[in-house]
Structure formats: C-alpha cells, structure tokens
C-alpha cells in the first residue's frame, strides 16, 4: 500500500516538474508572464485523451498533444507581443478561461462537465504501461529527457538571447535580435512541454474533465516556479518536491478528503504570499518577478 502511495506521489512530482520547467522557459528565462500555462496543459490532455479513446497509438497521441499545445503557443504570441507584464498576465489568464469555457461547452467533442473517462493506459513497443510502476518509469523518463532538452536550450546562446529579452527587450532588438520570433519560440516551446505533461496526466488518471484545468491548478505551478526561483532549473526541482509533498501529512491527520483539497490550496496560497512578501527571488532565483 505504501509503495502505491509513494509511486503516486513520485508520478505527480514528475508531472508537476514538467509543468514547472516548461513555465520557466517563458516566465523565468524570457520574462513572459504567461499565466495561461494551464491552457496548454488542458489542450495537451484533451488532444491525447481524444486520440487515445479513438484508438490511436500512444506515441502519436503523445506527440500530437505537444504539437497542438505548441501551435496554440505560437498562436497567442502575435497578439500578446506588445503587451507588458501585467497586461500579458491578464490576457493569458483570460486565455485560460476561454479554453476552459470551450472544454466545458463543446460537449459534442469533450462531453463538457462529464469529462472523458476510460482513457487506456499507454503501450509502446509492445510494452503496456498499465501498472503504476511502469507508468512511473515512463513519466520519469519523459520528464528527465525534457529537463535535459530544456537545459540544453537555456545554456546555449539561444537561451542567452531569451534572457536578454527578459532583461531588456529594446537593447536586444537594437543588437539585431528578432525579439518577436524569439518570444514566439519561447511560448511555443513552453507550451509543447506543458502539452505533453497534459498527455501524461490524462494517461495516468485515465479520466479528465474541465475542472482539472482552472486557475486553481495554476497556483501550485506558479508557487513552484517562484519559490524555486525564476530561471533556476535546480531550484525548480527542489521546489517541486517540496510543494507536492508538503500538504501530504494532512491526509494522515485524518481530515476528510473534502477538506484536504482546499487545505492544500490554502497552504499553496499562503506560501506564495509569504514568498512574494519576504523572499521574492525564491531559493535560487536570478530575478524577481517583473
């Protein structure tokens, strides 16, 4: 029993880590306050779920999730290009609401609030990942591979341009960098990884509905990114483990699960507020927000 529980936590840690490091690309490295990150997660999850339920193989549904999210990432880059900080945040937040509303109302596709149940566990190269242990290996592999890829990107000169854009967009343009293209890439790459995180989530829980993709889900991810520190991959890893594990003791104190959920949110919201007031750079952050 204990192993099943630990494996579950581990899987969650890997999925949240993937969500958090993908947000770091746009927010921490490029300085784009994309509060609409969960929308990409949602798109990835639904695309994967729909393809899986219609018999498409895992590898196709997984990649499609990433690519669909990526396309949306590119798509919102144009209208948000000139927006500054908090207006970008608000616009991307509004984007999350729109995606949520579509998921809720396009019932012929998504079954609305009823959600999509019965998503089969993935199978790849003939191996079926139906046991939680095997799924843990799959998730760990995907997340660690993504971490490797993202680290490669941010350490390269391309990554330095992203950081330059965060620090001073005009100076970057005057040095000849095509800032609009770079921002689009940042949002698209960020979206891609959020999309595949959504895919993993759908395959793991085997059921998705719009309520998993609201502002509430953004809070832990945002808290992780800020606590760990903007633009710090190392900090993100530590913060993810901390944030996922921190509210777990609540289960053992004997609170009913209807209370545990909101208590987790309270803990996250409080941590976020305290960090913003007292340690806005987080543990390993290079910069403060804005």
């Amino acid at each position, binding site marked *: 029993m204990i192993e099943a529980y630990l494996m579950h936590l581990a899987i969650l840690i890997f999925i949240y880590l993937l969500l958090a490091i993908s947000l770091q690309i746009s927010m921490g490295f490029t300085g784009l306050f994309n509060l609409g990150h969960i929308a990409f997660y949602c798109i990835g999850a639904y695309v994967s779920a729909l393809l899986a339920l219609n018999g498409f193989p895992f590898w196709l549904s997984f990649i499609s999730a990433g690519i669909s999210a990526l396309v949306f990432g590119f798509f919102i880059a144009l209208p948000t290009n000139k927006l500054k900080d908090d207006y970008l945040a608000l616009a991307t937040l509004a984007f999350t609401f729109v995606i949520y509303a579509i998921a809720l109302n396009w019932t012929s596709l998504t079954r609305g609030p009823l959600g999509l149940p019965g998503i089969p566990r993935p199978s790849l190269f003939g191996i079926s990942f139906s046991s939680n242990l095997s799924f843990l290996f799959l998730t760990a592999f995907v997340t660690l591979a993504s971490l490797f*890829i993202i680290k*490669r*990107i941010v350490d*390269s*000169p*391309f*990554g*330095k*341009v992203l*950081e*330059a854009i*965060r*620090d*001073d967009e*005009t*100076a*970057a*343009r*005057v*040095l*000849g*960098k*095509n*800032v609009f*293209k*770079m921002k689009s*890439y940042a949002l698209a790459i960020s979206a891609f990884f959020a999309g595949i995180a959504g895919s993993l989530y759908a395959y793991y829980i085997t059921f998705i509905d719009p309520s998993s993709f609201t502002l509430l889900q953004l809070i832990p991810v945002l808290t992780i990114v800020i606590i760990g520190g903007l*633009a710090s991959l190392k900090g993100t890893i530590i913060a993810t483990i901390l944030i996922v594990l921190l509210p777990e003791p609540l289960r053992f104190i004997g609170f009913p699960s209807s209370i545990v959920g909101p208590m987790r949110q309270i803990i996250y919201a409080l941590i976020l507020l305290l960090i913003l007031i007292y340690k806005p750079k987080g543990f390993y952050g*290079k*910069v403060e927000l804005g």
Partner: protein
Amino acid sequence: MLKIKNLKKYFGGVKAVDGCSFEVKKNTITALIGPNGAGKSTVFNLISGILKADDGKIVFNGREITNEKPEKISSLGISRLFQQTRLFNNLTVKENLNLALEQEDTKFWKNFFGKVKLNRGKEKKIDEILKLVNMEKFKNRLARELSYGQKRLVEIARAILKPHKLLMLDEPVAGVNPKLRKEIAKILKKLNKEGDTILLIEHDMNFTLKIADEVIVMDNGKVIAKGKPKEIKNNPKVIEAYLGETKK
C-alpha cells in the same frame, strides 16, 4: 553615410523633432550637441527605429531606413549606445558581449544541435575588447554587480563589438570620471583611425570639441548650426541656445 532629411517627431503637442536635417560623412567623428530637450536622443531613437517618425527621411548608405524595425536597422550596420545603461543585468559581462558578436543565436535548431559554440575567435575578440576598456577582471561577473562607470565601459565595449559601419553613442562619458573620459576619447579616436564612423551625443564640451571632426548643433528640434569644432565654439547662435537654457 547617414543622411537625415527634414525629420519630424511630435509627442502630442510637443514638437520634439521639428524638421531636422544633417549628414554624417563616412569615417568621421560627428558630434550632435545642444541644450537639454533639443531632441538629440529622440533623433537617435528615430534612427534606431525605436520611435516612428511622423515625417522626414533617414537614409543609411543609400538605403532608406525610416521607420524600419530596430533589428533590421541594426543588421544593416548601425550599433548604438543608450543614454541610460541597458546592459542585461542578470547575465555576465562575457555573455553581454557575446550577444553582440553572435549572429546565429536566434536559430533554434542550430543551437539545439550544438553547432553554435563560443569558439576561440569569439573568445579572443571579447578578451581584446575587455582589455581595451580595462575590464578583463570582470569578465565573469554579473552585469548588475558593476558600478555605474564599469557598466558604461562594458556597454561601450558591447556597442563597439557589435559588427557595425556606424557607431552611435548617446552620452558615452556622462557620469564618468575625467581619467576614464580621456581613455574613452583615446579609444574612439583609435576606432576612427581604423575606419569607423562615429556619431555621438555628448554634453561634455571639452570631450566633444577635442575629438569631433564635425559638430552639429540642435535646439528645439531643429539644427541651428553645423561646422568644425572651432567654428561652433564661437558661433553666436550656439552660445545663445546654451545661454538661453541657463537663463530659463
């Protein structure tokens, strides 16, 4: 090399640049001077493409660049120093300079597959320029850890390092100590001898009149005088413009 024809920029009712025309000849050091609020930095911003002109033309090496995007203008060979420091604060000095050198860093796939490397050629250029401004020790320091004067030097280095045909410097020695000013004057003269064309805005008259080949004076958004430093020094219109400012 650079021709400005009847340039105009209005901010609401304020005529920041009101029919400004001048020329920067190749291989000269040209100084753009004038009292505060004359519109000099605005002209720089118009040339760089950061602001859109309301009227007029800007021609660089025979090509019209009015209202083009900053990155395009930059790639045509204009390198620019700003009045306020615009270093990338959370990057190191070396990274700041490398961004000026790198031409391939916005290519995602090339970078991902590792074909863009800080090769020895680039490293050498960075070391050379740091030596020139006496900042080798700070190569791996974060830009935000530097003092104002040090930041200015790194920025000048960055502007020089960026491949260019025209170097535009907005107040390169403002707030910099006299000894350093002399150093920078030397550097600019050296660059000019090596073939660079420089356009600079500066309030320090000594600095300007010592190194400039040609001086253009602006007041109230217009050019009121042009000529060699000696002529400008004694030009009554120029004196009035500056005196008028102190009277205000």
